[in-house]
């Protein structure tokens, strides 16, 4: 599957914010609709009261309708927006008083008040109409009263409520959006914490995650732990395997080499001796190559997951000198260490040791007999380890490419070595944020400086 990586947090936030927006809009619409109904109802109630009070004031006297309109009948229709008021009083279909245009033909006694919104005098009005039978002789009189009112105040009230609902809706939305951000951040925090605790681990730390996690994350963490267990098992196996393989290969090589040496001491014929020498050199070269390949793989692995500690460069170098002194002596070479007190740094000691050993190894290989190899450790201006010899030096034209993998100097022909030594030293320097400097000395001989 391809595509841009998507964010759980963004999706959660957007879903929550989207939900809040829908709710806010819904809230606004519901409040508006409800307010419209309420406002309309309250206008209708007042209109109904007005109509009723008008009808209540009507009496039939001597066959004539007398309607002593109560002041309150219209006074109660006073509104903040000074809405206009219209009315019509009719007996049957005969218009008696008020606004003629409001009168209606289809009077229907007995029914409750009828409300309608209609156009009148060029504006929208709400009309309440009520018809009543007034007792009279010889027969009852049908009296219809209509009262109408413009809707300015209603519109004003609705506008105010709409604005308030919109403000509340917006405030609710903002609050919900803020909470959505907080919620998504806090929900996903355990995920980040687990990721951080795993990222903080050292390269060799393959323990399972045991911190308590939310229920939803436990399958993920369980899978992770199972993977860690298998990985740990597999790493242990391969380490054992590599050690075992080395053992299996190196032991027969040692057997062959010993036999070859012994045979070489016994034979006199030149061509036989030549063949045996080649055999011994081949064994040495393959053994050294295997060693350097293992070294290089180890350096690469440890550089990727650098684990530093406080170490003293002088201590590391003096151990190397102790170890290699017998080899140097065999070649009548002097191996010296020079320093002014300890040089503490934060570094991976195994990597440093490997780099220096490879540099000294190179110096031993390319030194002329009865020369001297000097290791100098300095603290200032920055920690450096310098290895100098009195050999043939690096070939001037290939200085830059020397530390590339498997590059060997042109003038190194005939000397056993895989060419990985300088690469290892360079990788180690760079893993510690430093560099490897190669140059030739004026008095002759090579100089390799490990800057850390």
């Amino acid at each position: 599957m391809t595509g841009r990586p998507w964010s759980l947090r963004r999706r959660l936030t957007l879903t929550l914010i989207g939900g809040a927006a829908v709710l806010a809009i819904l809230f606004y619409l519901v409040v508006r609709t409800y307010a419209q109904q309420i406002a309309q109802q309250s206008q209708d109630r007042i209109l109904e009261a007005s109509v009723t009070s008008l009808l209540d004031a009507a009496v039939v006297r001597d066959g004539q309708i007398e309607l002593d309109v109560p002041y309150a009948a219209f006074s109660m229709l006073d509104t903040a927006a000074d809405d206009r008021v219209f009315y019509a009083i009719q007996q049957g279909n005969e218009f008696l008083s008020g606004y003629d245009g409001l009168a209606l033909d289809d009077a229907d006694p007995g029914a409750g008040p009828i409300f309608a919104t209609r156009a009148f005098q060029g504006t929208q009005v709400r009309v309440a109409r009520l018809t009543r039978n007034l007792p009279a002789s010889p027969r009852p009189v049908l009296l219809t009263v209509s009262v109408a009112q413009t809707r300015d105040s209603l519109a004003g009230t609705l506008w105010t409520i709409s604005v308030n609902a919109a403000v509340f809706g917006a405030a609710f939305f903002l609050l919900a959006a803020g909470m959505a951000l907080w919620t998504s951040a806090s929900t996903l925090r355990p995920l980040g914490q687990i990721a951080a605790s795993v990222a903080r681990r050292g390269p060799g730390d393959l323990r399972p995650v045991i911190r308590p996690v939310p229920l939803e994350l436990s399958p993920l963490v369980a899978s992770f732990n199972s993977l860690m267990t298998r990985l740990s098992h597999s790493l242990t196996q391969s380490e054992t395997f590599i050690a075992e393989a080395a053992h299996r290969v190196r032991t027969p090589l040692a057997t062959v080499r010993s036999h070859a040496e012994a045979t070489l001491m016994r034979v006199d014929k030149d061509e036989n001796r030549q063949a045996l020498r080649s055999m011994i050199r081949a064994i040495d070269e393959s053994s050294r190559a295997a060693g350097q390949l293992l070294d290089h793989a180890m350096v690469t692995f440890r550089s990727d997951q650098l684990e530093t500690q406080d170490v003293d460069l002088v201590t590391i170098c003096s151990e190397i000198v102790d170890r290699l002194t017998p080899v140097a002596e065999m070649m009548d070479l002097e191996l010296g260490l020079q320093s002014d007190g300890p040089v503490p740094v934060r570094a991976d000691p195994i990597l440093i040791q490997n780099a220096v050993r490879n540099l000294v190894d190179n110096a031993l290989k390319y030194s002329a007999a009865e020369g001297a190899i000097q290791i100098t450790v300095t603290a200032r201006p920055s920690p450096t380890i310098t290895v100098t010899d009195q050999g043939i030096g690096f070939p001037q034209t290939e200085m830059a490419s020397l530390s590339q993998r498997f590059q060997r100097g042109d003038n190194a022909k005939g000397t056993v070595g895989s060419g990985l030594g300088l690469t290892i030293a360079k990788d180690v320097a760079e893993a510690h944020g430093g560099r490897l400097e190669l140059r030739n000395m004026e008095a002759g001989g090579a100089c390799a400086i490990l800057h850390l």
Partner: protein
Amino acid sequence: MRMKYLLIEDNTELAAALCDRMRLDGHVMDHAATLSEGADFLRVGEYDLILLDIMLPDGDGRRFLERHRAQANDTPVIVLTARSEVSDRVGMLDLGADDYLTKPFDHAELQARCRAVLRRRTGSAQTVIRRGTAALDPVASVLTIGDTEVTLRNRELRLLELFMNAPGQIFSKGKLVDRLFSYDDTVTENAIEVYVGRLRKHLEPSSVTISTHRGLGYRLDDG
């Protein structure tokens, strides 16, 4: 310097090859295939040096080292390992090994390390090789003639040791080059003449001489 070694190594072929090679140099080497066998040898005999393999059928060589040091046995131990240098280094030196060698190894290097171990332990050899008025301490690398002492360089020492261990034997130039320069193809046989010349100068006051046998090689003569 002729020495008595105990080799504890489960691979019999390697052990046979090593023993063969050692005897050519005049050393005595007993072979034990297991740790318990090695312990038996140690109980009955005295050895100058133990060569110890790490992976053995009846246990880890490191456990043997621990016991060996706990019994206050001070016979030096050089560990032979097939693993990479780094991983075993700390453990073995901490457990009391005097040095270690990665297989396969050059016998000259084994000799050099043995000499270094012994030098650290005693400072000089129990057996000084004497020929005429010349006496060679191979551990201290000192040649004594009468009252004068000469400190020899490593290749001079190894060359003289060869001659003094086999007086009257003719060594060809080719064989000497192989011994001194670890089978290096770039070194010519003439290089050996420089070292022979130096030895002759050192031996001048003594009764011992190195004679040249054209076409055959060199021989040490006493008197």
